């Protein structure tokens, strides 16, 4: 006789456990080999921009020295932190400890945020980082980001990804929401991401795609990594089986993403802009779940 939860009562934990078990078939119960990958990029640098990239530059520099909150969290779970400058406004070549893959010095304000070639390079860089992580035998990755005005691009990508659904939803209520036509994400991902995205979201899109297709779990936390996760699932639905949310927010963009992904994040710490801190907490959940692996036998 087993006292498992009835199917209709399944919680976020049960759903996550089922997904983890099916992702790591034939594996032992030991902790996963983990890493934190942090993509850095600034958004809308030619809009209102008082800091000129100083805040995000400082944060990247501090993380590269191991003094960021994400570094402390990563040390606790024995995970290395990989920091990639994909599109910060400022030049970071003087900072050691950052992988320099800069495709642009911050994205533009308005549409398009970058040209298609730039987006293509960001996706490729994200994919290359994923391949490198996979070669190292990493089994689960927590995604983070550093950048300024990140919510603008998170909102723009999410709106583009849910364009049709949002319009349909408003039509049901008797009025029509007019969203700027940026194209169909499923059909023209690069064009849409170039129009709406920021470099870190576009790179994360490429990163998630490669990881999830190779059976490497990706844990994301906020609306920025959530935008990349949502976009990846719209273009490649099979990615859904490899991505896991960690933090829950009351913030509407994140809520929309979770609703569209049918996901229920379970951690309520109210951490924002944590450069992957919430994702690190999510990796701990994965490790705890792995201890249950094989319990049905």
């Amino acid at each position, binding site marked *: *006789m*087993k*006292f*498992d*939860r*009835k199917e209709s*009562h399944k*919680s*976020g*934990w049960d759903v996550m456990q089922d997904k983890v078990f099916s992702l790591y078939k034939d594996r032992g119960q030991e902790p996963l080999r983990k890493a934190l990958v942090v993509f850095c990029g600034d958004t809308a640098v030619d809009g209102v921009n008082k800091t000129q990239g100083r*805040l*995000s530059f*400082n*944060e990247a*520099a*501090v*993380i590269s020295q191991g*003094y*960021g*909150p994400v*570094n*402390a*969290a990563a*040390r*606790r779970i024995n995970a290395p932190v990989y920091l990639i400058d994909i599109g910060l406004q400022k030049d970071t070549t003087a900072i050691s400890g950052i992988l320099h893959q800069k495709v642009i010095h911050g994205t533009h304000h308005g549409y398009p945020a970058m040209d298609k070639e730039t987006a293509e390079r960001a996706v490729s860089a994200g994919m290359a980082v994923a391949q490198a992580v996979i070669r190292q035998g990493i089994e689960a990755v927590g995604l983070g980001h*550093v950048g*300024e005005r990140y919510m603008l691009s998170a909102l723009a990508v999410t709106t583009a990804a849910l364009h049709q659904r949002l319009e349909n939803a408003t039509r049901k209520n008797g009025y029509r929401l007019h969203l700027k036509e940026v194209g169909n994400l499923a059909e023209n991902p690069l064009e849409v991401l170039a129009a709406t995205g920021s470099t870190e979201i576009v790179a994360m899109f490429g990163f998630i795609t490669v990881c999830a297709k190779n059976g490497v779990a990706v844990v994301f936390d906020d609306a920025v990594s959530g935008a990349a996760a949502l976009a990846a699932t719209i273009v490649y639905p099979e990615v859904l089986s490899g991505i896991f949310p960690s933090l*829950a927010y009351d913030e509407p963009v994140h809520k929309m993403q979770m609703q569209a992904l049918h996901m*229920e994040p*379970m*951690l*309520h*710490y*109210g*951490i*924002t*802009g*944590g*450069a992957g*801190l919430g994702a*690190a*907490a999510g990796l*701990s*959940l994965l*490790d*705890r779940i792995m*201890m*249950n692996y094989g*319990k049905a036998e």
Partner: protein
Amino acid sequence: MGLLEDTLNRIVPLSSETEEEIRTRWNRLYLGLTYMGNAVDMVVHYALSVGETMPEDPEKVLIAPLSEHGAARSFINRETPDNPAYAQMIKEAEKNAAFAGAELSLVDTGLSGEGLSNPHISRQRVAEGTADFTKGAAMTRQQAIQAIESGIEMAGEWIEKGKKLFYLGNLSLGSSMAACGVIAGLKEWNAAEVYRPESWMSKEQVVDAIEKVQQALDANQPDNHSPLDVLMKTGGVDIGFLTGVILGAASRRGAVILDGLSGVAAAYLAFALSESSLQSVMASECFSGNRRQKDLLQGLSLTGVSTLNPVWETGMAAVMAGDMLETVLHIYKECATKEELGVEA
């Protein structure tokens, strides 16, 4: 003076100067664009509880009682120790403790007969199960005091061994009924507003359990100004024991993380006995879906941090909250200040 009274006398308000010192360090830390949310409060709470402004990594113990509840006997097939659910719960508690790097302390506070055999189980039996509280008080006043005092003793023993952080679980079948009875009794709420169905239960069993708790409240009319009266009439030995652990920890510089409705019931009792005892208590679950979801923790000025909704109260939610507490403690201690780094916010 009895142990309970003596313990209550030793619980004193914690230093506001220490809190100010801890919050000042948080404000000075360079956290980049990170907003730490309520994670900061976890550190403040823990550091205050143990009385250290730069606390060491906590030594931990997961404590969970095992007791039988008279009122649950009619709808749980076998509440007795031969029920296979115990083995599953113990296994899960072992994993939770192992994950947390915590000692596991399972305490037979009220099983019947020979009880259970497991190296983690110690016996501090107060009663062989409680009486059916739909027909009268669950236990005597003396048993209620004894249950609390055995929890105080247990907390003291672990503190002597160097443990500072206590995860509270409860491996008693039917514990939701006793927890619900205590909370509803103290707060004068209806049982249906508080009861948290154990997820393996059928709808009929849930309705039956709620009716039984309400019946117990109506029949026993617990005095909500007297925590001991509520505990003896509509509680359980397990809930009393957990109350004792909270009080014992609070009186000797220990911190506690609650898990499940049992922990919340114990915290309400501890609060009613000594308001200052909650200074050492942190919550884990948010209790989503509970009709009193907001009031449940707000009444204790606590904040839930997860919606894991585990099947049992085996310490899972508490351990995961503790995992985050340790992470944030590392951030608090390892991150550099803005002055040290020479950067602004």
